[in-house]
Protein backbone atom coordinates (compact mmCIF):
# COMPACT_ATOMS: atom_id res chain seq x y z
CA UNK A 1 0.00 0.00 0.00
CA UNK A 2 1.25 3.48 -0.85
CA UNK A 3 2.41 5.42 2.20
CA UNK A 4 3.44 8.98 2.83
CA UNK A 5 5.19 10.32 5.94
CA UNK A 6 5.74 14.02 6.53
CA UNK A 7 8.11 15.66 8.97
CA UNK A 8 8.24 17.63 11.09
CA UNK A 9 4.63 17.69 12.26
CA UNK A 10 4.99 21.34 13.18
CA UNK A 11 7.59 24.00 12.46
CA UNK A 12 7.96 27.52 13.82
CA UNK A 13 10.25 29.89 11.95
CA UNK A 14 11.20 33.49 12.37
CA UNK A 15 10.42 35.63 9.35
CA UNK A 16 13.34 35.26 6.94
CA UNK A 17 14.57 32.00 8.48
CA UNK A 18 14.80 29.45 5.65
CA UNK A 19 14.02 25.76 6.22
CA UNK A 20 12.79 22.56 4.56
CA UNK A 21 9.84 20.25 4.97
CA UNK A 22 10.19 16.54 4.25
CA UNK A 23 7.86 14.06 2.57
CA UNK A 24 9.03 10.43 2.54
CA UNK A 25 7.10 7.95 0.46
CA UNK A 26 6.82 4.31 -0.48
CA UNK A 27 4.83 3.59 -3.58
CA UNK A 28 4.80 1.00 -6.31
CA UNK A 29 5.29 2.99 -9.47
CA UNK A 30 5.26 6.67 -8.63
CA UNK A 31 3.03 8.56 -11.04
CA UNK A 32 3.56 11.86 -9.34
CA UNK A 33 4.23 13.57 -6.04
CA UNK A 34 2.04 16.53 -5.22
CA UNK A 35 2.41 19.40 -2.78
CA UNK A 36 -0.57 21.34 -1.47
CA UNK A 37 -1.04 24.22 0.93
CA UNK A 38 -4.01 24.25 3.30
CA UNK A 39 -5.17 27.25 5.30
CA UNK A 40 -7.46 26.76 8.32
CA UNK A 41 -11.07 26.14 7.32
CA UNK A 42 -10.24 25.79 3.64
CA UNK A 43 -9.59 23.03 1.17
CA UNK A 44 -6.05 22.23 0.00
CA UNK A 45 -4.60 24.47 -2.69
CA UNK A 46 -2.32 22.93 -5.32
CA UNK A 47 1.32 24.01 -5.37
CA UNK A 48 3.47 21.57 -7.38
CA UNK A 49 3.59 18.23 -9.15
CA UNK A 50 6.90 16.35 -9.49
CA UNK A 51 7.14 13.27 -11.67
CA UNK A 52 10.69 11.97 -11.60
CA UNK A 53 13.75 11.93 -9.37
CA UNK A 54 15.91 14.97 -9.86
CA UNK A 55 13.02 17.20 -10.85
CA UNK A 56 12.69 20.62 -9.20
CA UNK A 57 9.98 23.26 -9.33
CA UNK A 58 9.83 26.76 -7.89
CA UNK A 59 7.14 29.25 -7.05
CA UNK A 60 7.97 32.47 -5.26
CA UNK A 61 9.68 31.49 -1.97
CA UNK A 62 8.94 27.78 -2.41
CA UNK A 63 11.04 25.15 -4.15
CA UNK A 64 10.11 21.48 -4.37
CA UNK A 65 12.61 18.71 -5.11
CA UNK A 66 12.21 14.97 -5.59
CA UNK A 67 14.41 11.91 -5.06
CA UNK A 68 13.50 8.24 -5.35
CA UNK A 69 12.46 8.10 -1.70
CA UNK A 70 11.51 11.59 -0.62
CA UNK A 71 10.60 15.11 -1.54
CA UNK A 72 11.58 18.36 0.08
CA UNK A 73 9.73 21.64 0.13
CA UNK A 74 12.29 24.37 0.68
CA UNK A 75 11.05 27.69 1.99
CA UNK A 76 13.42 30.60 1.46
CA UNK A 77 13.09 33.74 3.57
CA UNK A 78 9.53 32.91 4.66
CA UNK A 79 6.95 35.55 5.47
CA UNK A 80 4.04 35.34 7.94
CA UNK A 81 1.64 34.78 5.04
CA UNK A 82 3.41 31.48 4.32
CA UNK A 83 1.94 30.13 7.56
CA UNK A 84 -0.25 27.15 6.67
CA UNK A 85 -0.28 23.36 6.66
CA UNK A 86 1.68 21.86 3.80
CA UNK A 87 0.49 18.48 2.54
CA UNK A 88 2.09 16.05 0.14
CA UNK A 89 0.38 13.26 -1.75
CA UNK A 90 1.58 10.50 -4.05
CA UNK A 91 0.49 8.27 -6.92
CA UNK A 92 -3.10 8.94 -7.85
CA UNK A 93 -3.06 11.81 -5.36
CA UNK A 94 -5.20 9.60 -3.19
CA UNK A 95 -2.59 9.11 -0.49
CA UNK A 96 -1.91 12.20 1.56
CA UNK A 97 0.51 12.68 4.40
CA UNK A 98 -0.60 14.20 7.69
CA UNK A 99 1.01 17.51 6.82
CA UNK A 100 3.46 19.94 8.35
CA UNK A 101 1.97 22.90 10.17
CA UNK A 102 4.19 25.90 9.47
CA UNK A 103 4.06 29.06 11.54
CA UNK A 104 6.16 32.04 10.51
CA UNK A 105 6.61 34.60 13.26
CA UNK A 106 7.08 38.28 12.31
Amino acid at each position, binding site marked *: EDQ*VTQSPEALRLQEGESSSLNCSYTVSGLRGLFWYRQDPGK*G*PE*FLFTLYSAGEEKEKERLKATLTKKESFLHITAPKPEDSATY*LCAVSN*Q*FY*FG*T*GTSLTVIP
Partner: protein
Amino acid sequence: GAGVSQTPSNKVTEKGKYVELRCDPISGHTALYWYRQSLGQGPEFLIYFQGTGAADDSGLPNDRFFAVRPEGSVSTLKIQRTERGDSAVYLCASSPSLAASTDTQYFGPGTRLTVL
Protein backbone atom coordinates in the same frame (compact mmCIF):
# COMPACT_ATOMS: atom_id res chain seq x y z
CA GLY B 1 -14.49 32.06 -12.17
CA ALA B 2 -16.44 29.69 -9.95
CA GLY B 3 -14.48 27.10 -8.06
CA VAL B 4 -15.66 23.89 -6.45
CA SER B 5 -18.55 24.54 -4.11
CA GLN B 6 -19.89 22.32 -1.34
CA THR B 7 -23.12 22.50 0.58
CA PRO B 8 -23.89 22.71 3.38
CA SER B 9 -20.77 24.24 4.87
CA ASN B 10 -21.71 22.78 8.24
CA LYS B 11 -24.01 19.92 9.13
CA VAL B 12 -24.92 18.79 12.62
CA THR B 13 -26.89 15.59 12.94
CA GLU B 14 -27.76 12.97 15.50
CA LYS B 15 -26.37 9.49 15.63
CA GLY B 16 -28.36 7.14 13.42
CA LYS B 17 -29.62 9.81 11.03
CA TYR B 18 -29.10 9.98 7.26
CA VAL B 19 -27.17 12.86 5.67
CA GLU B 20 -26.42 14.04 2.16
CA LEU B 21 -23.47 16.24 1.24
CA ARG B 22 -23.38 17.99 -2.10
CA CYS B 23 -20.48 18.93 -4.37
CA ASP B 24 -20.63 21.21 -7.40
CA PRO B 25 -17.40 20.78 -9.38
CA ILE B 26 -15.80 23.27 -11.70
CA SER B 27 -17.79 23.33 -14.93
CA GLY B 28 -16.42 20.92 -17.50
CA HIS B 29 -14.28 18.91 -15.09
CA THR B 30 -14.66 15.22 -15.80
CA ALA B 31 -13.12 13.82 -12.63
CA LEU B 32 -14.52 14.30 -9.14
CA TYR B 33 -13.10 13.11 -5.84
CA TRP B 34 -14.37 12.79 -2.28
CA TYR B 35 -12.11 12.82 0.76
CA ARG B 36 -12.65 13.17 4.46
CA GLN B 37 -10.29 14.91 6.80
CA SER B 38 -10.12 14.57 10.55
CA LEU B 39 -8.46 17.18 12.74
CA GLY B 40 -4.70 17.10 12.40
CA GLN B 41 -4.79 14.54 9.59
CA GLY B 42 -4.38 14.68 5.87
CA PRO B 43 -7.29 14.07 3.51
CA GLU B 44 -8.35 10.42 3.35
CA PHE B 45 -9.52 9.23 -0.05
CA LEU B 46 -13.09 7.93 -0.29
CA ILE B 47 -14.16 7.68 -3.93
CA TYR B 48 -13.33 9.01 -7.37
CA PHE B 49 -15.64 9.49 -10.38
CA GLN B 50 -14.85 9.70 -14.05
CA GLY B 51 -17.97 11.14 -15.60
CA THR B 52 -20.98 9.40 -14.11
CA GLY B 53 -19.24 6.23 -12.98
CA ALA B 54 -17.25 5.50 -9.85
CA ALA B 55 -13.79 4.66 -11.14
CA ASP B 56 -12.43 3.81 -7.68
CA ASP B 57 -14.52 3.46 -4.52
CA SER B 58 -11.91 1.58 -2.52
CA GLY B 59 -11.76 4.28 0.15
CA LEU B 60 -15.38 4.06 1.24
CA PRO B 61 -15.11 2.73 4.81
CA ASN B 62 -18.26 0.59 4.79
CA ASP B 63 -21.64 0.17 3.13
CA ARG B 64 -23.15 3.09 5.06
CA PHE B 65 -21.31 5.39 2.66
CA PHE B 66 -22.48 5.85 -0.91
CA ALA B 67 -21.89 8.49 -3.57
CA VAL B 68 -23.54 9.29 -6.89
CA ARG B 69 -22.91 11.56 -9.83
CA PRO B 70 -25.89 10.86 -12.10
CA GLU B 71 -25.26 13.47 -14.79
CA GLY B 72 -21.50 13.67 -14.60
CA SER B 73 -21.49 17.00 -12.84
CA VAL B 74 -22.91 17.45 -9.32
CA SER B 75 -22.15 14.68 -6.86
CA THR B 76 -23.82 13.70 -3.60
CA LEU B 77 -22.15 11.77 -0.80
CA LYS B 78 -24.70 9.89 1.25
CA ILE B 79 -24.13 8.53 4.73
CA GLN B 80 -26.68 6.24 6.35
CA ARG B 81 -27.06 5.53 10.06
CA THR B 82 -24.42 8.10 10.97
CA GLU B 83 -22.03 7.36 13.80
CA ARG B 84 -20.01 9.74 15.97
CA GLY B 85 -16.86 8.50 14.25
CA ASP B 86 -18.16 9.91 10.96
CA SER B 87 -17.57 13.42 12.27
CA ALA B 88 -15.00 15.08 10.01
CA VAL B 89 -14.62 17.60 7.21
CA TYR B 90 -15.70 16.10 3.91
CA LEU B 91 -13.77 17.53 1.00
CA CYS B 92 -14.63 17.40 -2.67
CA ALA B 93 -12.21 18.06 -5.51
CA SER B 94 -12.46 18.07 -9.29
CA SER B 95 -9.95 17.89 -12.11
CA PRO B 96 -10.27 18.66 -15.79
CA SER B 97 -9.09 15.61 -17.67
CA LEU B 98 -9.12 11.85 -17.85
CA ALA B 99 -5.53 11.63 -16.55
CA ALA B 100 -6.68 11.67 -12.96
CA SER B 101 -3.43 10.28 -11.60
CA THR B 102 -1.45 13.31 -12.71
CA ASP B 103 -4.10 16.02 -12.89
CA THR B 104 -4.19 19.04 -10.66
CA GLN B 105 -7.07 18.69 -8.22
CA TYR B 106 -9.10 21.75 -7.23
CA PHE B 107 -10.64 21.44 -3.81
CA GLY B 108 -13.79 22.89 -2.37
CA PRO B 109 -13.96 24.39 1.12
CA GLY B 110 -15.44 21.24 2.61
CA THR B 111 -18.50 20.33 4.65
CA ARG B 112 -17.94 19.99 8.37
CA LEU B 113 -20.08 17.10 9.61
CA THR B 114 -20.71 16.72 13.31
CA VAL B 115 -22.57 13.67 14.58
CA LEU B 116 -23.87 14.10 18.10
